[in-house]
């Protein structure tokens, strides 16, 4: 081993007892080496002695922040009950198949959908030779039926019910897939989940809560940005507005801050004004974000209810 490495081991206390004794013997016979090591030892010790201690102000700030984080965490836990989690992977597998089926149904021409159901309910009817309409299917049905109009209406209602329940089921599985994707480790999978979520019309509260959780906790900036966009598409409840304002107060990436400011202005959330003002004054914040905050204060203040 080189001299340099042994001296480092000696100074940092990484030599074994036997090695240390041998090295100290060497030091006693080599005055040049001894002088070198003593000087280095002196500097190393000084370095250790100059270390600063923490103070109560620092402790106070940390425990306050911890308390705040605990309150936030409790809210999130209450909103997303954990028993769901264990079923996500199974639900995702089932939902994968179901989604394929659903997409097929959505993309197929509507006439085919009716014909299929009508044919299923009248197995002895020969298949129509041209694009069948609902009326045709119904009139065929009429021939086989003695209870004409009431029966026709009953059938129609039952078909409508079947379609409605199918759609409901599809929506549920879609929501399960989204919830499951948002928990994936890979950021691209989570982005996929957000894309699916963006296609929903009126998502269940659980989906919104999962999006809120993603916005607060996701480590990937891209995922957080996409979550902001998705949340903006849905019904803009007070809770969503509040979450976006809080997120702006916490965010430290300039892109995230700008996106949030722009979104809050589009959503006309006046409650965000104090945070905008805070950002505008904060010298640690990126210059472009501060200018945007300043302009947005003007824009938002001008909006009248």
């Amino acid at each position, binding site marked *: 081993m*080189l001299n*340099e*490495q042994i*001296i*480092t*081991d000696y*100074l*940092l206390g*990484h030599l074994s007892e036997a090695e240390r004794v041998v090295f100290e013997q060497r030091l006693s016979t080599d005055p040049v080496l001894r002088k070198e090591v003593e*000087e*280095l030892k*002196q*500097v*190393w010790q*000084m*370095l*250790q002695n*100059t*270390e*600063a*201690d*923490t*103070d109560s*102000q*620092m*402790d106070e*700030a*940390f*425990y306050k*922040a*911890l308390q705040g*984080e*605990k309150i936030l*965490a409790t809210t999130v*836990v209450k909103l997303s009950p954990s028993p769901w989690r264990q079923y996500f992977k199974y639900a995702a597998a089932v939902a994968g198949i179901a989604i394929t089926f659903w997409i097929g149904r959505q993309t197929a021409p509507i006439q085919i959908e009716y014909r299929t159901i009508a044919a299923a309910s009248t197995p002895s009817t020969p298949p129509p030779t041209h694009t069948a309409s609902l009326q045709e299917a119904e009139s065929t049905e009429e021939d086989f039926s003695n209870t004409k109009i009431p029966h026709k209406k009953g059938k129609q209602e039952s078909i409508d019910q079947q379609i409605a329940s199918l759609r409901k089921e599809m929506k549920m599985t879609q929501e399960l897939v989204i919830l499951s994707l948002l928990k994936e480790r890979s950021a691209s999978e989570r982005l996929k989940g957000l894309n699916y979520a963006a296609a929903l019309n009126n998502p269940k509260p659980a989906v919104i809560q999962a999006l809120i959780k993603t916005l607060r*906790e996701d*480590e990937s900036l891209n995922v957080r940005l996409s979550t902001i966009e998705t949340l903006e598409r849905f019904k803009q409840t007070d809770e969503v507005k509040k979450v976006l304002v809080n997120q702006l107060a*916490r965010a*430290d990436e300039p892109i995230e801050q700008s996106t949030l400011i722009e979104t809050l202005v589009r959503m006309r959330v006046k409650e965000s004004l104090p945070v905008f003002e805070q950002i505008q004054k904060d010298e*640690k*914040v*990126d210059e472009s974000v501060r200018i945007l905050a300043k302009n947005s204060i003007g824009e938002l203040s001008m909006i009248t209810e």
Partner: protein
Amino acid sequence: MTDEQAMYAVSQGDLDKAAILYERYKKSLLNFFLYRQHDRENARDLTQQVFLRMLRYRHTYREGASFRTWVLEIARNVFFDHLKQNPTFSDLTEIPDVGDTYDEADEQHQYLHQALTQLPDQYREVLVLSRFQNMSYEEIGQTLGLSVANVKVRVFRAMQKLRDLYFDVSSK
């Protein structure tokens, strides 16, 4: 309870365990920042940011990963972000004048910090890491992308350089 067990508990929602990690690491982190710049107020603020990020990104901690290297990575990122946000800031900040009240220890302290600010970055970094929670050579090597032998040689040269700078500054 090891650091890793505490951090895993935090990542699973037991936030009270974060206090254990705070108590164990607050001094190391404060000094980690003080080695790089001398403003105590700044160092305190940056230390605070490390713990806030630790809490906020707790879900990204993977069970079994070394907490020391994980938190160090956060600290380095916090410091780089700080430099990015303060482009005029230089870690060669002037040493504040301590006035008439300083004693010999203060003087020594001042010289050492002056020497530290003049130390090339690569040397300062390796010294800071060797002082950070007694990190092993392997961990330092992992962080800096060096072999264990190279870490030892660099620590030695950093100390030599620091000594030369110290004697140079104090003899002026």
